[in-house]
């Protein structure tokens, strides 16, 4: 059964800290891995990763995929209070579905 596991479940840091969020997965037919940020409402798309070792970057956020070890990390440097959110990792499997993990709840304190 396809599965996505995220860790930690929650994290509290201070502004300026760097955080690393983890996503490990099991899938029979890997297509892509995605990261979403969810604040109050709908998840918003951050990154899509399909190849190992290629870092995707957007401002202070970056992500990388390791298809051999079946995991991805999302890094946030110099965190700000606006980064407080739930970060969701999702897989696109071969069966046309987006499979989500339980998310990591990040709280950044001023």
């Amino acid at each position, binding site marked *: 059964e396809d599965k*996505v596991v*995220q860790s930690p479940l929650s994290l509290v840091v201070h502004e300026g800290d760097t955080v690393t969020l983890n996503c490990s997965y099991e899938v029979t037919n890997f*297509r*892509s891995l*995605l990261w979403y940020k969810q604040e109050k*409402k*709908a*998840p*918003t*798309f951050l990154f*899509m990763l*399909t190849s190992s070792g290629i870092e995707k970057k957007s401002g202070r956020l970056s992500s990388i995929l390791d298809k051999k070890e079946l995991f991805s990390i999302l890094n946030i440097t110099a965190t700000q209070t606006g980064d407080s959110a739930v970060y*969701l990792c*999702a897989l*696109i499997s071969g069966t*046309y*579905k*987006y*499979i*989500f*993990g*339980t*998310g990591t*709840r990040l709280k950044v304190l001023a």
Partner: protein
Amino acid sequence: NAGVTQTPKFRILKIGQSMTLQCTQDMNHNYMYWYRQDPGMGLKLIYYSVGAGITDKGEVPNGYNVSRSTTEDFPLRLELAAPSQTSVYFCASSYSVVNTEAFFGQGTRLTVV
């Protein structure tokens, strides 16, 4: 620039009542999904559709039904609402499942009392 539109935003149902959650997208996406999100949890797939006339069950389909008569619309029907169906429901759509992201509606918060 509507994207994925869900209605209603909030609803309170009594046990045993029925309702339909509406979802419409204007991006001509073939793939559409219904998820539920319980407090502190991730998104669980209820039903999905790969095109008009084609639907399939996800992880948690019991108590729900869907239809897909057009590309744009993917309503979710709750029959005989139960407290366990209290959740936030998200509809999503994607152009394909080959390296494209899914776009989400703003969610429907449903409470069954």
